[in-house]
């Protein structure tokens, strides 16, 4: 049984301008010790998904449907008390901006110890000692002294380690990291990822939310690509990067600038992400897709197995490669061919063909 099973998740935000579908029928799973990447542009629904798992959605957001099962337990039915014990306990969360995720008026040591006190039996000095050892575990030098300092006295990278330490206080099975490296320098980012790598090796499952494909490629086992609140592709990491099946994924990959590129302009995916209050009819990506056809404006493609079989059930099984494109839906009125492919620039393509 998977550690985390999200099925058909529906999240809506009720704003002044109407209801916005932030997450639409999202399904994915995460096994013990596995690393899942959730990628997409800003506004795709990645963070909302992460918050929904822990029940941390603020008004005006509300979970309207679907199910979230953690270790077999349905979280959407859980009592507030159970959810509270879950947060920081079995599921830890790391946020994007470490400077704002920490309370500025309490010392770092106190904030870690606080988490320790909530999730373990330790109190007082014992909790403090554990806090210091957690700070040590995340690689903060001279942890005893640093524990007496305030968040603003820490650099971004160090502060993020503190946030990780707090997330570890309850000895979690799952760590949800929401853009943990976005605000950090590249070298600090690498260090933090090493730390996460180290922690993940201890059988900690990680859900890494990011818009940085490079980070995801280097860290994750499987990836879910989100667009406008929907999952558009889901695959093991190799498959995603070498054999992308959805035009959006291909677009994202092609947009990464390359050293030695001989084109004059940076390639982009034209247009902008749709307004979630009134998304485009049919496939949400069709206005920006070079392969779009008439059928695409009429039908919203399900997350189909790219080997051709259509599965309409909310089947969120781990294996397999799926993409939400009519090209893979047998009974769809789609004639064209998605003729993009990945090439390795030393001449060999993904399937090993071409001159070396």
């Amino acid at each position, binding site marked *: 049984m998977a550690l985390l099973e999200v099925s058909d998740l529906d999240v809506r935000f009720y704003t002044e301008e109407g209801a916005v579908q932030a997450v639409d029928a999202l399904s994915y799973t995460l096994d013990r010790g596995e690393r899942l990447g959730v990628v997409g542009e800003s506004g795709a629904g990645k963070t909302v998904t992460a918050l929904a798992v822990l029940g941390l959605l603020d008004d005006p957001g509300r979970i309207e449907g679907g199910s979230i099962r953690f270790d077999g337990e349905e979280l959407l039915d859980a009592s507030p008390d159970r959810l509270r014990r879950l947060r920081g306990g079995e599921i830890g969360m790391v946020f994007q901006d470490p400077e704002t995720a920490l309370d500025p008026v309490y010392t770092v040591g106190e904030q870690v110890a606080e988490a320790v006190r909530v999730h373990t039996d330790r109190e007082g000095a014992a909790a403090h000692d554990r806090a210091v050892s957690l700070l040590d575990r995340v690689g903060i030098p001279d942890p005893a002294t640093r524990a007496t300092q305030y968040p603003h006295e820490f650099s971004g990278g160090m502060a993020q380690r503190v946030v990780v330490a707090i997330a570890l206080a309850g000895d979690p099975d799952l760590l949800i990291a929401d853009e943990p490296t976005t605000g950090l320098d590249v070298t600090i980012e690498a260090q933090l990822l090493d730390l996460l790598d180290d922690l993940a090796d201890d059988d900690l499952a990680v859900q890494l939310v990011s818009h940085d494909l490079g980070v995801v490629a280097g860290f994750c086992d499987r990836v879910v690509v989100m667009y406008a609140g929907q999952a558009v592709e889901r695959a093991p990491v190799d498959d995603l990067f070498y054999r992308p099946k959805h035009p959006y994924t*291909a677009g994202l990959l*092609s947009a990464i600038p390359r050293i030695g590129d001989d084109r004059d302009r940076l390639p982009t*995916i*034209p247009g902008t992400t749709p307004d979630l209050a009134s998304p485009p009819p049919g496939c949400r990506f069709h206005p*920006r897709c070079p392969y779009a056809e008439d059928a695409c404006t009429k039908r919203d493609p399900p997350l189909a197995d790219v080997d051709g079989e259509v599965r309409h059930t909310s089947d969120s099984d781990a294996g397999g490669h799926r993409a939400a494109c009519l090209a893979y839906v047998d009974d769809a009125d789609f004639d064209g061919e998605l003729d993009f492919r990945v090439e390795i620039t030393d001449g060999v393509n993904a399937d090993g063909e071409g001159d070396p």
Partner: protein
Amino acid sequence: MPRNPLDGRGRLRVRGFESDDADGDAEAAAATTPTTDRWRRAWTRFRRDHAAVAGLAVIAVMALLAVFARPIEVSGVVVQPVALAPYDPGASGIAPAYRPPSLAHPFGTDWAGRDVFSRVLYGGRYSLSIGVIAVSLALLVGVPLGAVAGYVGGWVDETIMRLVDVLYAFPFLVLAIALVAVFGQGFWKLVGALVAVGWIGYARLIRGEVLGVSERDYVLAARALGASDRRILRRHVVPNAIAPVIVQATLNVGTVVLSAAALGFLGLGLQPGTAEWGSMLSAGRDTLVGGEWWVTVFPGLAVFLFVLSINLVGDGVRDALDPDADTDTYREAR
């Protein structure tokens, strides 16, 4: 195949995803909804705030009542002939003194046998005009000084701000009282005192805004694009900086009216016997033991109603101009 195929960055390349075809669709899809002028958007937001609209209506009614209370004459020409007030506010002895409210005198009569209703109606002229004039003049003094201080900086800034700091040390009313003590009483002296105390708030506010806005990225961007200083000021700095000032000014009309009434109550306002709301309350205080509540309730109610309405409008203006700011950074009663 190695576990991390992308270890050697830059080796992957996607072929075939050519964006040219999709340009037309994307551009069409990205066809922007027309952006509405910020002031129009603010007005729409304001209109949705029922309390604020109600407040505006009340103020409008009070203003109309004040204007049409008694005829207005300019150089002998009767500009406004309507007299909503049944009696001359200054006419004493038209009725027995201290009569409780009745049909003939809905608000009763005061110690001099004057009709309180007429006086309250007429009194609106003083309060409203003092409020609007004092705030307008204070804006005329404070905004330029603050803007200059913020934009020019240097010793000009230092001097103005030191002056502001010193003036801030005096409580509003105490300083106004001191000024009245020195310069005497009367309408314009009262307005002058209120202006002298009131300008500092705006100066500080606009200086802060100008300083803050000048540093914002969009100003830097405009400069990088070659926009002239004047253009930047006009199109970027001023419209953004002016919003909090508008809110503050609106709320300050209430503060000024309260202060003017307070000064009137203390006997430091207009000529004694003037039909000004605060002064009327002063007389009420002197004869409190008699229990003639109508002399106290009605003038005070007028002040209360006006200040409440203007505060509602001020809140509405603030929410309209800056809907995300739930912070009361605007100090109401100071």
